[in-house]
């Protein structure tokens, strides 16, 4: 440990400083931090769009934005949150944590790592900048279903290009993560002794490599249909719009797990730390993660129950989808068994973890409701679906990202964050989240379609509650930004092992983690 600390200083002589440091850096910690900041910026950009949407939906009638702009906002909100906020945040965690957790000196392909990050800002610029071109941004929904997406203007091409670039970035990141995990673990760290976050990311990276090229293929066909006279998705030319849906969701459903498996990993570190007890059922956790990943390839049809597939297709996808509840249930039971007879304290990361387990499970319940084909048919494309995926993505993925950030901030910055403000942030977020999204279940059950700028008067009250919640939720996140900046600038000195119950190699290096760590591999026991 002392050795790595002493080395930390002599590298800076050669490395560029200032802005050039960040353009040229190959250091996993710098790149991890850039990913996290990028993610946070995109979170606020996407959040701003969400607030415009919720403001428009505060009452029936059109008040703030025209219907076409409304469609553009829902489309870009989704793409920004998925590809700009959630995925880069997890890649940021991977960059910071995987080398520290497996005892590696850096990521396997350090230069490619730099490139994977620096592809993201141009992609995001294309995506968000498409609002400025004639006709405005893509307004076909993030799923880009043809023929509607064929009708759009140049912004659709910008969106397709952005998706291509982000996909390339994800694939490079995944190759890097897989190579690092498989080749650079400390002596003694067998696969079945790896930290759970490392396991979940290993599986996620394989999912990314499997499905990102599929998405790239789908949007490339869209591009050639738009400009080069092909008819992949045009019935008049022998094509089929339904084929796009099949290809898109073959990517789209594993994508859902790409956004939740690393979250499972983070939660599997936070709960044992604050229950001061080893994670229950390590091997069943690994097997459950792998089962979820495998099942994710055979459930895409549950996004298409209203397409009119044959009964056999509907039944197959219903059964396969319901099966996912089994490994997911195993995970929830394992977390609760980890808490059971522990010695629990409720620092901010633990609050987010408990919030995650509770609210993600509600998202799981609504997922079970939607898995059942006949019920799905009556709820498809209603606000029930919007409520469902925000329960799994916001109180799932984003709660884990925030919990993880509070958990590792002491390691990253060397300071403890402000615990009172952190707890305040949690409670504001958890309460306003539920005010925003719980009423949307009722709207969906009552039959309010999603992606509409205006609605019948009987939906007014729940929409108003939801909009009020959304503004509380949005502005509460500024508190998170404040707590993070405050923690970077100062605060109580964090020890190497910042939490009493923390386990793992990352807690054996000083806080903040020196610029270079584990130049000689540690021995893992």
């Amino acid at each position, binding site marked *: 440990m002392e050795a790595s600390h002493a080395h930390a200083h002599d590298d800076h002589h050669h490395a560029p400083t200032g802005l050039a440091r960040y353009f040229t850096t190959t250091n996993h910690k710098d790149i991890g931090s850039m990913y996290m900041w990028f993610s946070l910026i995109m979170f606020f950009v996407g959040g701003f769009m969400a607030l415009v949407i919720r403001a428009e939906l505060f009452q029936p009638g*059109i008040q703030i934005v025209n*219907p076409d702009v409304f469609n553009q906002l829902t489309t870009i909100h989704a793409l920004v949150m998925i590809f700009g906020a959630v995925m880069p945040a997890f890649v940021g965690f991977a960059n910071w944590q995987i080398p520290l957790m497996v005892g590696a000196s850096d990521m396997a392909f350090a230069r490619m790592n730099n490139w994977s990050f620096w592809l993201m800002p141009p992609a995001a610029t294309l995506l968000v900048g498409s609002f400025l071109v004639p006709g405005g941004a893509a307004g076909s929904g993030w799923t880009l279903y043809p023929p509607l997406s064929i009708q759009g203007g140049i912004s659709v091409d910008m969106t397709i290009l952005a998706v291509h670039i982000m996909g390339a970035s994800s694939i490079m990141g995944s190759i890097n993560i897989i190579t690092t995990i498989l080749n650079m673990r400390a002596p003694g760290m067998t696969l079945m002794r790896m930290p759970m976050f490392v396991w979940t990311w290993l599986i996620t990276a394989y999912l990314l490599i499997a499905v990102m090229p599929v998405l790239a293929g789908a949007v490339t066909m869209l591009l050639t249909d738009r400009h080069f006279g092909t008819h992949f998705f045009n019935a008049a030319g022998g094509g089929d719009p339904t084929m796009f849906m099949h290809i898109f969701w073959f990517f789209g459903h594993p994508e859902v797990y790409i956004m939740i498996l690393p979250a499972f990993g983070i939660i599997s570190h936070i709960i044992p730390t604050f229950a001061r007890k080893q994670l229950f059922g390590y091997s069943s956790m690994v097997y459950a993660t792998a089962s979820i990943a495998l099942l994710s390839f055979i459930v895409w049809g549950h996004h298409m129950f209203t397409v*009119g597939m044959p009964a056999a297709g509907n039944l197959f996808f219903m059964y396969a989808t319901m099966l996912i*509840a089994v490994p997911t249930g195993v995970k929830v039971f394992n977390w609760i068994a980890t808490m059971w007879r522990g010695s629990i304290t*409720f620092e901010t990361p633990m609050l987010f973890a408990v919030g995650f387990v509770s609210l993600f499970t509600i998202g799981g319940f609504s997922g079970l409701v939607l898995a*059942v084909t006949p019920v799905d048919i009556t709820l498809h494309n209603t606000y029930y679906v919007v409520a469902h995926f925000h329960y799994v993505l916001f109180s799932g993925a984003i709660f884990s990202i925030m919990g993880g950030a509070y958990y590792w901030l002491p390691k990253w910055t060397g300071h403890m964050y402000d615990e009172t403000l952190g707890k305040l942030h949690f409670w504001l977020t958890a309460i306003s989240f539920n005010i925003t999204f719980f009423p949307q*279940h009722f709207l969906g059950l009552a039959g309010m379609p999603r992606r509409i700028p205006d609605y019948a008067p009987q939906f007014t009250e729940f929409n108003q509650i939801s909009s009020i919640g959304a503004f509380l939720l949005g502005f509460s996140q500024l508190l998170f930004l404040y707590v993070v900046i405050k923690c970077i600038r100062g605060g109580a000195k964090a020890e190497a092992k910042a939490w009493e119950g923390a386990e793992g190699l990352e807690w054996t290096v000083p806080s903040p983690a020196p610029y270079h760590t584990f130049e000689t591999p540690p021995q893992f026991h």
Partner: protein
Amino acid sequence: MKKLRVLAGALASAVPALALAGYDVNIPAPKTPISLQIYGLHMEIMYVCLAIFVVVFGVMFYSLFAHRKSRGAVAAHFHENTTVEVIWTLIPFLILAVIAFPATKTVLAMKDASNPDMTIKVTAYQWKWQYDYLNDGLKLYATLSTPREQIGAPDAHGKVTNEHYLLETDNNVVVPVGKKIRLLITANDVIHGWYVPQLGVNQYGIPGFIKDAWFQANEPGVYRGQCSQICGKEHGYMPIVVEAKSAEDYAAWVKEQKAKQAADAAPAEKVSLADPVVR
């Protein structure tokens, strides 16, 4: 009354059980054999979820309360138990099988559009619906009838006054009650969705393809729905209104529509003959 129901809804967010009590917080009253089954399935799953919720979160919150460090709890050391893990893998599996059985029956019933009493071809456009009554030789278009002034715009706010704001059309789809109505659904430009919750139908219309669905309204009434699949800027403004009428009233309506269409078609006979869709 409305306020009261909303209050019930707000309470229901705290206590899921209450969600089953009110009308506004559940699937609207089912009016066909299929939507009745859907309603029943949804209730069954909700009860299952509620039971799991109470048991699982009961255990978790007990643990969060009782096993706190501030109460002097000392962490135990166990970290696996194969028996328990096998049991909590198998039990969910069995619960799922119990749900899957009735769901399968409903899926099969929904897909069986054979032997209908009558067939209506539904063609979706940006942004209206065309209905061709294949048995009665009728054709009508349905568009939103809510005045644009009520909808408004960012620079000229409207005032919503119509009771069925956004859920009203100039020509309603009239069907006889108690008859099996088969819908042949397609679209002419982009994908749309023909969605009427109380009839248990939500089916995409896909350009170039015809998909079928069916319903049988049990009682006379007006059933309202909307396009369910984003289809461009007026996606929120293409409602569906189905009127189920008794056999006599339906026959009278058909007669009236035919007279109207004959009157409309008279000056432009050639155009009507050239129309390839119906007959």
